């Protein structure tokens, strides 16, 4: 789950890391009030879940509250990379002496969080790592032991930072690492971490991303501290009607799982496929043989007839779908006969002839004899494990293309 800057700053603040006195505003009037309170030059920043806002004109400087309000008015109407802002953040224009970077990410190979620090802040850390590797300090933290300040100190010292800068930055990186672990983050970044002319260190901008599976147990932070509504899931794109309906069908009973996606799919061959790995393999096999999938889907965990039927119905009702291919890698839990019944029911309910509509049915495994019998009755050819995933996909492509 991604956060807006004003939320990321709040998260950082809650962890005890100093931030400037910022104001999140939804209207130009609120922006004016925030600027008046700051009583000095301000920065007005668009609150969008996308990068490149500086370039797009989403960050503006103001000397007076009137100017801040005027900038807010412009920015609130400015679309950036297809995103409309949720509001603006009004921040005091900081007197910055130097910008640093502090971050924590997962290292999947070490299976531990990795602390990162650089004395070249304000730019992308990947760029710094590539061009100035000696300016990036790294160090793992344990998943079990407490985060010790010295570990953060070592990481910072590796970049050559010393003196009061080292002692002031150390607790900030250590608190960030604790926050990363406690709040189930996938990414926690302060960039820039600014050293002000008066020597203080403050987080001027922050990026946070939370593990999707942890959203439930982080409810207190999300709902109470940040006021994020439960249905505000921050997907990277708006779910389609197809995706929404499949999700509803999946939620309607607890047996098995169906998933459907059609974002950027618009072909004529509907895919009723599974499970995780099988779906990936089959989608590739269809495309590699010239087929045009209308969607991606996953069946798993032995869904009910109603669920299998629901998924097939939704796929069949998508614009441009001519036939469906029902295919899975060998199943041991999901029952072949139940999926067969579901997809045939979907055809019949929509007034379609299963033998014409189901281009291919290739699901070997549990209850396959029963499945084959049902399919045979409706004139649908059944492929067992002797027909490879590749060949089944190829046969489906041939049939839909006539």
């Amino acid at each position, binding site marked *: 789950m991604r956060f807006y800057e004003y939320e990321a700053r709040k998260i950082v603040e809650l962890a005890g890391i100093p931030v400037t006195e910022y104001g999140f505003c939804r209207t130009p009037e609120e922006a004016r009030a925030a600027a008046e309170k700051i009583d000095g030059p301000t920065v007005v920043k668009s609150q969008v879940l996308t990068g490149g806002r500086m370039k797009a004109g989403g960050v503006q400087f103001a000397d007076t509250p009137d100017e801040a309000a005027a900038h807010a008015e412009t920015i609130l109407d400015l679309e950036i990379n297809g995103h409309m802002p949720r509001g603006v953040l009004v921040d005091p224009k900081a007197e910055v002496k130097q910008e640093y970077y502090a971050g924590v990410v997962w290292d999947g190979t070490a299976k531990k969080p990795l602390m990162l620090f650089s004395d070249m802040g304000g730019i992308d850390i990947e760029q710094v790592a590539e061009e100035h590797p000696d300016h990036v300090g790294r160090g793992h933290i344990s998943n079990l032991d407490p985060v010790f300040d010295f570990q953060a100190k070592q990481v910072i010292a590796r970049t050559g930072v010393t003196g009061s800068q080292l002692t002031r930055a150390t607790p900030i990186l250590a608190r960030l690492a604790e926050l990363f672990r406690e709040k189930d983050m996938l990414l926690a970044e302060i960039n820039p971490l600014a050293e002000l002319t008066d020597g203080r260190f403050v987080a001027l901008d922050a990026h946070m991303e939370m593990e999707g599976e942890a959203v439930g147990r982080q409810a207190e932070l999300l709902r109470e501290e940040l006021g994020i509504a439960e249905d505000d899931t921050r997907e990277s794109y708006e779910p389609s009607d197809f995706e929404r309906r499949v999700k509803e069908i999946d939620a309607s009973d607890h047996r098995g799982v169906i998933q459907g996606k059609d974002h950027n799919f618009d072909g004529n061959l509907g895919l009723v496929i599974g499970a995780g790995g099988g779906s*990936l393999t089959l989608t*590739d096999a269809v495309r590699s043989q010239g087929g045009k999938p209308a969607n991606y889907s996953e069946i798993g965990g032995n869904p009910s007839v109603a669920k299998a039927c629901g998924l097939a119905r939704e796929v069949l009702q998508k614009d441009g779908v001519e036939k469906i291919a029902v295919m899975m890698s060998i199943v041991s839990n999901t029952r072949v006969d139940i999926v067969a019944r579901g997809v045939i029911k979907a055809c019949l309910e929509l007034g379609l002839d299963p033998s014409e509509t189901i281009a291919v049915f290739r699901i070997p495994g549990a209850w396959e004899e029963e499945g084959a019998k049902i399919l045979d009755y409706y004139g649908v050819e059944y492929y067992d494990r002797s027909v490879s995933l590749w060949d089944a996909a190829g046969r489906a492509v041939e049939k839909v293309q006539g």
Partner: protein
Amino acid sequence: MSVLIDADTTFIVQGITGREAVNLTRECLDYGSKVVGGVTPGRKGREVHGVPVFDTVEQAVENHGGPIDGSVVTVPPGFTKDAVIEALANGIRLVVVVTERIPRGDVAEMVEYADRVGARIIGPNCLGLIAPGLCKMGGIGGPAADAAKAYEPGVVGVMSRSGGMTTEISSTLTAAGLGVSTAISIGGDAIIGSTYAELMPFFEADQETQAIVIYSEPGGRMEAQLAEWVAANNSRLPIVAFMAGKFMDDEEMKGMSFGHAGTIVEGKEDSATEKIARLQEAGITVVERIDEIPDAVKEGIDG
């Protein structure tokens, strides 16, 4: 021989009274696996297909009268970390974590704990492992008769990020007369207990195993890690890889996840195309189709 498990392997099932766990226990018993106990807190005194149920792992070990080799953990995500560490704290050294949707931080915690005590975790979000004819630990391959049909004893070690594809690939190897030494469903999450590279030394040491087949997906650096391992270790085993999810390389699919939780292209190193290039550089054969695997394996063994 086999890898990690054999005919003598004893294990328990944590969460044994759950619907899926009851089926899994039946399947493993039918296959001849030694399921010596089950744990569900508060259900002590019951039996599941003749297997005694206990409140704690400690009680299960006590009842068995000696160390237990393994555990299959299938409890809800919020309880998994504690269940796994309970097993490890009671001397169990091989834990298969079936549960999916466990937060990454919890997985990392249990894996670090396992490292400290010298134990091994397979999964999470996996179907377990099978040494054909000897032991089935987890739901892998399904009911005993189905598992026997897809998995015949043989010379190929299989490691797969997808549980279902473990069986699909093994069935292909069985049909081709090559068979399987041990097949491991390693799990589909971003962080897992045992990666390809971490399991390679076990296959390397197994005299029965003559070749390795892996099933991979986009996301993560597990394949790059395997390529590095192969380059550094001069392995005797030819490796054949199949990479699914090439369609995710399309620009418009970036940032979307399909299939497993770990399947999301985030950096430049973790797309299907990048991974294929890396594997090939290390001398690993990458096939386009599952049905090409047996010939590629034979070529690797003979070549």
